[in-house]
């Protein structure tokens, strides 16, 4: 079964082929990419069937040895991985096909498919990893692909900025993940998924409980970055600068779900530390509410969907934090399909109208029938209208919240469900219903785009069934590895869930179709709330003022410090050495040399005196001789 390794290698091969042969291939490179992705999907299907029949694959090889420590990488395919493989390869392939139409006229067409293939490889590598370090490696690689694809149209300054922002913001979380993994490693001595059995974690929890709690929180920080959870969510709305298929694949369906996947994968550890679980639940719930609230006032069709994604990811996190393992993973799967469909539908609208502002649209239903109908399916699914997929998964999450015994989570998530339905149908009404508000020449997209839409629409509608009571919650049993999970439907929860969804839809249609003046009125009355929403809680401004500007200022300050103080000391040392040599020179010239010169001068002076008596006249010498002689005699006598 080790040939499951091949699953990520198909897209990798496609990437390499396009990278080196893209010029020659031209528009054919798209088909290379589709072939890579489709092959991965076919192979995945085979693997998934085996897993459903009860097989689990595990295989490993040694990557790094440090004395006693070994890092062994490899392959792990269990139900959770199988679910991810299904989502990534199926949604991915649909989006690859769709991109052929969407990117048709782009000058860097083949480059786009190279990046997509690289992303596919990394994402599949992430899902089949059996080791935290291996996961981390692919985790960073998907981040790289996200960066490359967000700033794909890099001539636009805003796209370049958005890519950088995404990479660095998620990297902040990744550092948390990195430190968390180091803590985990030193507390338990392993980073291999399979080693973290319930017994193992329980025994380690006795020895190093708070360290493991901290480690969990830090791992969650990484998930916050990737899955755009509060307070690291700020990069995802900006990431909409990328081409729309990228938004669908990476920033809605797959990569951003990697954070949720990480927590689900770490569930055997997390579930032992209630404090860490609470952190996950609280952050998830905050994110879900906050993002839904912001989505209410967004006017860019992709921004609405971006905040919706953040909100839904918060939903999944909250489910996991509240112990709803199957609920969170189930919603991950359903969301991937309907959110990918929403984004691709939005892409179709953008393709057809060359606009992203929903205020400029209206009345597109008649002009873009396939897009409108499929978009409607997805909108109903995300709003939680039975029997579409979103209903079942959302219902599971609300049930988990209800049974957690803390009503605050339940009601917060219920309100979010209501808001979700509301903003989705606000978007839908403004875009597809009513009369055209501006002269947009809308046209339906080509079949290469609408066929993937239709396929995804079928999935969005039906993918909830395996987790529904009609199939006796088959999905939940499967994802738990065959252990049947007791699920008691609570009628109150179901009623609330349906009520919130339908209520939101009704209200939105009422406000935006029947009484189109009212929303403006409401915004004026609740101005502060409106401003909070439309300014996104001023998070970007806050980061700009509190983190980015100070960091830049610190950089410049340290640079000046470096030049004036650190280097100043060096230069001063040099200058002082030169000065010191000046002093030495003075001493040399004036004192040492002076002494030598003085000796000479005294000698000269003395010789000058002595010269006076050296007259050259013999009589003077005789005189001196006689006087000297006399002097000697006198001295003798005395």
């Amino acid at each position: 079964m080790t040939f499951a390794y091949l699953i990520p290698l198909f897209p990798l091969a496609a990437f390499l082929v396009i990278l080196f042969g893209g010029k020659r291939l031209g528009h054919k490179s798209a088909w290379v990419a589709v072939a890579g992705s489709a092959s991965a999907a076919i192979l995945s299907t085979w693997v998934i069937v085996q897993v459903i029949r009860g097989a689990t694959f595990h295989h490993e090889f040694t990557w790094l040895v440090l004395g006693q420590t070994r890092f062994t990488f490899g392959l792990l395919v269990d139900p959770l991985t199988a679910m991810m493989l299904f989502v990534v390869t199926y949604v991915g392939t649909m989006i690859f096909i769709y991109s052929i139409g969407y990117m048709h006229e782009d000058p860097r067409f083949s480059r786009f498919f190279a990046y997509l293939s690289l992303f596919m490889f990394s994402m599949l590598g992430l899902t089949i990893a059996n080791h935290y370090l291996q996961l981390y490696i692919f985790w960073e690689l998907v981040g790289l692909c996200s960066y490359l694809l967000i700033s794909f149209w890099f001539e636009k300054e805003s796209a370049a900025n958005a890519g950088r922002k995404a990479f660095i913001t998620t990297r902040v979380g990744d550092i948390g993940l990195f430190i968390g993994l180091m803590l985990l490693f030193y507390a338990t001595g392993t980073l291999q998924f399979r080693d973290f059995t319930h017994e193992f974690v329980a025994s380690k929890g006795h020895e190093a409980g708070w360290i493991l709690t901290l480690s969990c929180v830090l791992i969650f920080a990484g998930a916050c970055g990737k899955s755009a959870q509060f307070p690291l969510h700020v990069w995802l709305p900006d990431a909409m600068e990328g081409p729309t298929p990228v938004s669908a694949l990476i920033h809605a369906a797959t990569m951003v779900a990697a954070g949720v996947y990480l927590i689900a994968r770490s569930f055997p550890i997390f579930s032992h530390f209630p404090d860490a679980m609470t952190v996950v639940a609280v952050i998830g719930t905050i994110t879900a509410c906050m993002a839904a609230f912001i989505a209410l006032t967004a006017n860019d069709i992709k921004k609405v969907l971006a905040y919706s994604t953040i909100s839904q990811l918060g939903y999944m996190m909250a489910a996991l934090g509240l112990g709803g393992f199957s609920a969170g993973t189930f919603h991950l799967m359903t969301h991937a399909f309907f959110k990918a469909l929403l984004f691709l539908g939005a892409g179709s609208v953008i393709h057809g109208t060359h606009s992203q502002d929903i205020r400029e649209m209206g009345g597109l239903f008649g002009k873009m029938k396939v897009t409108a109908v499929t978009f409607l399916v997805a909108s109903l699914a995300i709003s939680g209208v039975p029997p579409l997929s979103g209903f079942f998964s959302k219902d599971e999450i609300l049930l988990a919240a209800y049974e957690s015994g803390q009503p605050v989570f339940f009601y917060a998530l219920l309100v979010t469900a209501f808001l979700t339905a509301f903003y989705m149908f606000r978007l839908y009404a403004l875009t597809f219903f009513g009369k055209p508000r501006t002269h947009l020449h809308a046209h339906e997209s080509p079949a290469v785009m609408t066929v993937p839409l239709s396929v995804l629409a079928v999935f969005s509608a039906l993918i909830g069934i395996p987790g529904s009571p009609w199939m006796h919650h088959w999905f939940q049993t499967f994802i738990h590895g065959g252990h049947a999970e007791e699920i008691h439907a609570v009628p109150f929860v179901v009623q609330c869930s349906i009520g919130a969804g339908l209520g939101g839809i009704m209200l939105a249609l009422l406000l935006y179709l029947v009484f189109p003046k009212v929303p403006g009125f409401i915004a004026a009355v609740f101005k502060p709330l409106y401003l909070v929403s439309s300014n996104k809680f001023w998070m970007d401004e806050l980061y700009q003022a509190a983190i980015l500007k100070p960091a830049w200022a610190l950089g410049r300050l340290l640079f000046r410090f470096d030049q004036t103080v650190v280097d100043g000391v060096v230069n001063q040392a040099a200058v002082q050495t030169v000065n010191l040599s000046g002093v030495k020179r003075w001493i040399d010239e004036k004192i040492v040399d002076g002494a030598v010169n003085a000796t000479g001068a005294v000698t000269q002076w003395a010789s000058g005196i002595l010269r006076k008596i050296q007259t050259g006249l013999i009589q003077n010498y005789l005189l001196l001789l006689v006087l000297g002689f006399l002097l000697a005699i006198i001295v003798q006598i005395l």
Partner: protein
Amino acid sequence: MLPLLSSLIFVPVAAMVAVMLTPKGETQRVRLIATAACAVVFLVSAWVFFRYDGVAGGMQFVESISWIPQINVRYYLGVDGISVPMIFITGLLSLLACVASFGIQERVKEYFALYLLLVAGMLGTFVALDLFLFYVFWEIVLVPMYFLIGVWGGPRKEYAAIKFFIYTLAGSLFMLLGILALYFASDPHTFNILELTGGKGFGLLFQKVIFLALFLGFAIKVPIWPFHTWLPDAHVEAPTPISVILAGVLLKMGTYGFLRISYPILPEAARWFGIYLAVLAAIGIVYGGFVALAQTDFKKMVAYSSVSHMGFVILGLAVFSYSGFDGALLQMFNHGTITGGLFLLVGVLYDRAHTRDLNSFGGLGARIPVYAGMLTVFSLASLGLPGLSGFVSEFLCLLGAFPVYRWITILSCAGIILGASYLLYMIQRVLLGPLNPKWKEMEEINGRELFTLIPLLVLIIFLGIFPQTILNLFGPTTHALVDSLGGLAR
């Protein structure tokens, strides 16, 4: 047996003589001689690299001849797992930088003569096992470097060259005092590094004083914060190939000194100074990152990033654990390939634009996509993207340091975020955004330039995916060193 290690030193010296004897004006022949010599050196270094028996460990390819018997100085060469990767990277970068030097147009003969002397000095430093010999090679490196910066450098070359020379010389003076003290303290007096190793019974105070003296010599070379300010000046002024050598090889001479001399000979002092090294390392990592963020000069930014990245080496060296030392040595190697490549890429751009001001570029990604791809991959390696070699070594350094110096390590992790910030900001200013019309005629990277980059790229990718291949080579040596030092942690 062939004196392979001697050939590493004397082939370039012979080539230097040949270059000097070449008639004036025959630049083509000069280049040919120099490149041929560097190619031979590279092949020999590669041979040593692949033939070194990593499992057996210990000193191999040993050559030993009495040189100055009166004071017991020997011409004593040999390599172990620590020097082998350094020799390989030196051989490789010498060849690549030699090819990159074809752009030099003035005084070609003198340039290559000095360059070959530099190569001989560097390799000598990495193979010498006698302190006296080591010191001789260490100083030999300085002189050609001084001229190469001072003659062929940029506008402020005199200042940069003299600063580099005096600063390093001041450091090596202390080192010389340390070496002499070791000589006189040993009984019988010896300069032999292996004989001085371990149980010489030096007192702790003596060890500390000598460690400090050697530290000054090595720290300036690395450079460890706050002894780093010569580096940005030297890099900015030096011609491209010399920057490559400076970053790729010269800086490693400092950290190599720790591994070869300070640690084995002064183990107790080394452990005592560990925490201070770790603190300086963390400061260097974060400080270098912040300052790199503020740069507008492309080369200066890379220079400050070197300060940050060499900090990881020091951090790994400060912990006396397997992963720490392995990480440090691997980081020394990887920094050579990655930063060497980045300097080459800066040079490519500078040759075309004659400016290094990051704000004057923009949008080049559309105009010169191959160059853009290269710059992006090397930058990603530098910022520690997994799958590329820089990640593995930084990971090992941090993993090793974490259990010993928890908070210092966490602080150092900030350097990773900073690395992403300044490198991506650089990429954005150079490659992304609208194309600056000034560069709409800019030429794509040419074959010769690609030739200098692709070997480095291959190493970066290969070691990112299969790090164990090189760890097998030096692991036994570093692990033996850790064991002999006693270690601070597992």
